[in-house]
């Protein structure tokens, strides 16, 4: 009976030792739900939240990427329009010869071609300014069959925007409408085309009355869109910071929930080792000789 008891004690002590060893070696406080059901459920939820946050972080990165691509495209467009306005101002000046005006018109035409390219900027298979019709080039130049120069530009896109969720229930548009930027209040292409044509025809009256005004308003229009992209970029950066902080705190929370406090666990393990040794020592004494040896 004493022996049975001693064996039982050694076994109990040993299984406790094993459990602590498992905790220390796996680093996990809860290895199966029954270890602590509530903690386990909490860990499952926290892990899910952490996974969401990680995904939101990459979504926010994505939004930031699209917005900065948009920003740099609009930056290019702004510079080109500024240049076009300077050229138009020079064209209004009546002192230019016809050849000189023609040279200016050619440069405007180049700006027009480039502007179409900028408006058709593509980033990883997606046309930036075509709304959600991302597979078609949104701005199609129609050309004079004889001269090959652009006579008008047609828009094929739609109003849709790439919408990305960056936090629970918070979505952000990662793109700017091409329609609004290039063909909104003022159609920038038409303004460039008419500037070019009036330069060629020498109609300085129309240049100074209509075209300069339109180029000016076009510039304002693009700048306004760029400011919008910039504001969104700033906002997404704030969201990114907050998400990173959330990730940190939730990861810590998860770790607190399911990870072992290693110092605590080591101390307990050491303690349990001593208890086990003691149980073994007691067992060794329990198997002491009885009367049977003394009778010899």
């Amino acid at each position: 009976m004493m022996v049975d008891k001693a064996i039982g004690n050694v076994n109990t002590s040993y299984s406790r030792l094993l459990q602590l060893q498992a905790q220390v070696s796996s680093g996990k406080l809860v290895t199966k739900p029954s270890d602590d059901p509530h903690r386990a459920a909490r860990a499952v939820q926290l892990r899910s939240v952490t996974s969401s946050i990680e995904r939101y972080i990459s979504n926010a990165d994505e939004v930031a990427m699209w917005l900065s691509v948009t920003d740099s495209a609009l930056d290019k467009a702004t510079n080109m329009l500024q240049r076009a306005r300077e050229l138009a101002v020079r064209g209004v000046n009546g002192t230019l010869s016809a050849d000189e005006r023609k040279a200016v018109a050619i440069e405007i035409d180049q700006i027009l071609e480039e502007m179409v390219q900028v408006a058709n900027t593509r980033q990883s298979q997606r046309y930036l300014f075509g709304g959600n019709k991302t597979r078609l080039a949104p701005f199609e130049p129609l050309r004079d069959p004889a001269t090959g120069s652009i006579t008008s530009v047609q828009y094929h896109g739609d109003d849709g925007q790439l919408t990305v969720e960056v936090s629970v229930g918070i979505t952000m548009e990662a793109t700017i409408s091409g329609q609004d930027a290039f063909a909104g209040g003022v159609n920038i292409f038409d303004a460039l085309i008419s500037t070019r044509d009036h330069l060629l025809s020498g109609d300085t009256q129309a240049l100074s009355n209509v075209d300069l005004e339109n180029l000016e308003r076009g510039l304002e229009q693009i700048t306004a869109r760029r400011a919008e992209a910039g504001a969104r970029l700033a906002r997404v950066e704030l969201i990114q910071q907050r998400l990173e902080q959330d990730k940190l705190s939730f990861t810590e929370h998860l770790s607190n929930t399911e990870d072992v406090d290693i110092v605590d666990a080591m101390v307990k393990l050491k303690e349990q080792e001593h208890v086990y040794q003691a149980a073994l020592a007691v067992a060794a004494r329990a198997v002491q000789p009885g009367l049977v040896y003394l009778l010899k």
Partner: protein
Amino acid sequence: MRSTFFGIELMRRAMAASQRAMDVTGHNVANAETPGYSRQRVRLETTTPHTLAGVFRPQVAGQLGTGVQVVAIERVRDRFLDDQLRATNGWLGRWEAREEMLGQVEAVLQEPSELGLSGYMDRFFAAWQALSTTPEDMGARTAAIQESEALAQAFVMTRERIQAVREDAVTALRSDLSKINDLADAIVELNIEIARAVVVGDAPNDLLDKRDLLLDELSKLADISVGNANTGMINVTIGGRAIVLGNEARHLDLTIDPTTLDVSLNWGDGSPVNVRTGRIVGLISIINDTVPLYLDTLDELAKSIITEVNAVHASAYDLNGNPAGPFFTGSSAADIAVRADISEDPRLLGTSASPEATGDGSKAVEVAQLKDKLSMHSGVSTFGDFYSEFVSKVGLDSRAAKRAKEVYENVLESQEDRRNSISGVSMDEELMNMLKYQASYEAAARMITAVDEMLDRLINGTGVVGR
């Protein structure tokens, strides 16, 4: 007058009794570690004394003792302790069986970790989030489909493996039942042998021990009560009906409902068996209640995911500009799968809210947002909440079983201690007895020598005057 050789006969009896007692001591020592063995002891009594007849009777001290005899070899056992211990055994069996099976369910779930169903759900929603940022990208589409397939497979696998635990439990129940029936047969055989011995006035101690051991074993499987029948036989009842009736055993049968796969126990004649404790009760509760509940929970979750995702997907358009239709097929965790043509052609995945807008990921966002939608428990919890509640339920069930098992183990241990303190063999005690019986044997032998010397004096040393 007493017989001349009376002293020799008296001492012969004493030596015989000492020998018997020594034999019993030896038997005890030999069986000290035999399971179920109860310590035996000899009951010594004086033999019938002589009333000496004689003319001068009143002057003679009456009734001369004639020595000692072994009237019985008794088993030291407390029937009350046996009953208590068997009741505990039944509860222990019940919780042990549950703990065993629930431990398997826990192992299937692999929570909390990345490998559990929750990890698959997280990755599923993350893939749809990723898809929403690049809806026209074939890589993102394929990834979303693969994660969706992984989720569907995880559901099917988890369900199958929990189902397998149920099948394990049925197998265990079958083997327990045949064990019960075998034990009943074995008890009947012992009953018959015991009756044979009792009829001729013997005490079949070792057979009784064996029968008690079988009863202990049986009590872990089902709650039994034991009653005495005539000539040392016993009756054993389960839920008020006899499984052993003297020299006759009855058997339990298992029936499985073909549609629900629920199990039930019945007597040969079809009437149900009422059991409250024992392994079989634990197993039946796993098979009929616990596992089906778990499976229903999984099915409910899978079904809601199918319904919700399909509702969004059906309102979306695929890359070809066609309505995307349902995304998942199936209606439960058993048959959930990604629609076959979608898993072959990622273009058929619906992400866009309009037929032309191929770059629109708003429907993918909606699918991803289902992660936080309160779709379960009639609109109070998310899929994740629902699942983690399930994990916690399994954990609680398993822990309850483990704790109850530990409690009954402790109770059983103390009851076994008490029984051992009564029925167990103490080596020291047996050795003391050995010394005692050895000494009394030697003393009897010495007495015989003394009587022998007296007779020698009488026969060879008396009346030899002048010889």
